[in-house]
């Protein structure tokens, strides 16, 4: 079956007065119908820019410079303004980290949900109101009729995010892009929102592109995950494979640097040394090599290609190449004979 969304060789850059800053450098991804794909990465890894590129919501200085974004086979990069407008909030919608700045503080929340339905659907006034009540009920906002006229400031952070989800799901999108939707929330509220997204997804059979810096959150909700670093995809795997057999030193580093709830307190954490690279001046070769404990000469010269480990598992690391040594190589057992 053809994937719902397919991104091929996406390059997105920002044009600043200091020149071009490449934020996304050749990202490929596919999302099947009903699937949840996670993108994990630190600030500056290009995960949000990738998601903003899909609906062309980039700031004026940003531009998709190459690549294709195919929704059911149709290229969104080539789509015109009005065409994109009819897709936004309809076939693809988005929720963001901060629900307060995404909602208009001067308009009652019910009206803000209505706006989405009126834009994309032909419905009568009373039908629209009815739809909004149903949506509020679906996202478990208590007392939908009473809350209809409330303003965003009268809601808690968790309830505001529920309003955002109601707006996003108003036209039953086939893809929901969720960019760090729980980062600003407390763990107990995060847990409520994740449970809600999970059940809504099953009910509506929609696909989700879930962006987060938190591997724990990704493990809770995604079936497949893509690890990004410095604008590149470093590893893509099914969620179990990523945690059981990570095939990139960066992924390994991320997993080792967070303490589990059972972690032995006398064992020091194993941090990744250094800091993430400066996007306007990225290192030559593999962007992770200055922080990598396995780096060799070739890593500083050339960007490693994505290596296939299994049908669903790829990683961008020279340690997986045929010529790589076997000693001090945690990935030697993962290499496929004859490439």
């Amino acid at each position: 079956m053809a994937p719902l969304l397919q991104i091929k060789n996406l390059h997105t850059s920002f044009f600043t007065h200091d020149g071009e800053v490449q934020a996304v450098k050749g990202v490929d991804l596919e999302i099947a119908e009903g699937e949840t794909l996670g993108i994990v990465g630190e600030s500056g890894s290009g995960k949000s820019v990738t998601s903003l590129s899909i609906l062309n919501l980039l700031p004026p200085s940003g531009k998709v410079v190459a690549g294709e974004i195919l929704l059911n086979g149709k290229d969104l990069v080539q789509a015109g303004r009005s065409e994109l407008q009819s897709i936004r909030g309809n076939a693809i919608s988005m929720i963001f980290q901060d629900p307060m700045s995404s909602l208009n503080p001067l308009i009652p929340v019910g009206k803000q949900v209505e706006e989405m339905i009126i834009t994309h659907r032909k419905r009568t006034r009373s039908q629209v109101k009815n739809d909004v009540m149903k949506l509020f009920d679906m996202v478990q906002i208590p007392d939908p009729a009473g809350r209809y006229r409330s303003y965003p400031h009268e809601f808690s952070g968790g309830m505001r995010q529920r309003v955002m989800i109601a707006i996003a799901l108003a036209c039953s999108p086939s893809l929901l892009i969720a960019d760090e939707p729980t980062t600003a929330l407390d763990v107990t509220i995060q847990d409520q929102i994740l449970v809600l997204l999970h059940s809504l997804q099953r009910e509506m059979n929609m696909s989700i592109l879930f962006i987060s810096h938190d591997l724990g959150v990704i493990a809770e909700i995604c079936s497949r995950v893509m690890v990004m670093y410095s604008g590149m995809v470093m590893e893509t795997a099914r969620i179990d494979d990523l945690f059981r057999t990570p095939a990139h030193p960066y992924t390994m580093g991320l997993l080792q640097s967070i303490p589990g709830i059972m972690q032995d307190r006398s064992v020091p954490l194993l941090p990744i040394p250094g800091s993430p690279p400066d996007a306007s001046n990225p290192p030559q070769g593999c962007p992770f090599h200055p922080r990598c404990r396995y780096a060799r000469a070739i890593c500083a010269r050339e960007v490693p290609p994505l290596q296939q480990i299994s049908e669903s598992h790829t990683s961008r690391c020279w340690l997986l190449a045929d010529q790589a040594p076997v000693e001090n190589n945690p990935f030697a057992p993962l290499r496929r004979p004859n490439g």
Partner: protein
Amino acid sequence: MDSPDKRGDTFMLEVNGLVKHFPVPGKRKSVVHAVDDVTFAIRKGETLGLVGESGCGKSTVARTVARMYKPTAGKIILDSHDISTLNGRELRPFRKKMQMVFQDPYSSLNPRMTVLSLVAEPLIAQGIVDTARAARDQVVQMLTEVGLSAEHCSRYPHEFSGGQRQRISLARALVLGPELVICDEPISALDVSIQAQVINLLQRFKQEQELTYLFIAHDLSMVRYVSDTVGVMYLGKMVEICDSEEIYRNPLHPYTRGLLAAIPVPDPGAAKERTRSVAIRGDLPSPISPPRGCRFHTRCKEVMDICRRVEPPLQTKEGDHKVACHLYGSLQ
């Protein structure tokens, strides 16, 4: 497990019945019950972690202990000296003993000061040196200890990454050789790959200089990892406090259990086994008019009739383990 009297050490910090209320602008009779009757103590060289959702009062505890706020009631005893009612000038000698590291390394460092003057500022304020230049050797030594170097002295905060800025904040806090360091969410603003660097640095200082920490964070896994004792706060109250191993092995309060269940586990196997039901329902009630009885009863899965009427006191269950919950009856 050692009982408190067996360890027999002296306390670095004792907080007894701490209360901090804030006035509500425009409403003369109502107050925000930020911290209500909180009691704990930290032994020298140990770490106490405080966890809870935003609005639970953990940062207010930190700031009141540091005497950035004046407590409404209660006692703060720092190394056997009562500092709860001292004024600005009287507090100054105690500032040497007690320093603070803040969450946001962007807003907590003055952008117009060089690293040298930032780290030398506490020394000048305490009258140890007269100028930043005179403190240079001391500053350089401190910078080296936090993983920076002499060449960073003349740079400004904007030239550093978040992780490096937090190292500067740490150098600033430690340059006076304090005994108690209060860390208010010191790693929350940092990237995942940087958090472990800062935690390891804090742990190293704890061992080398026998520092005592009051560590505030919302991340229960991280708090358990760094702390000897963990206190769980809810809406201004301490609801459970015990040894950090106990907190996940034998959590007693329904709120603690809910918090533990809500943490996303970076292990897909565990995540799938978990029943997909909500760990704690509802939102935090308003701290201006907290619920009667147990403050958690509006969200508690095991709520009983008594919980709505009577506030449960924090009582000792066994050893060092204290809990405020009617499920355990009257423990005395």
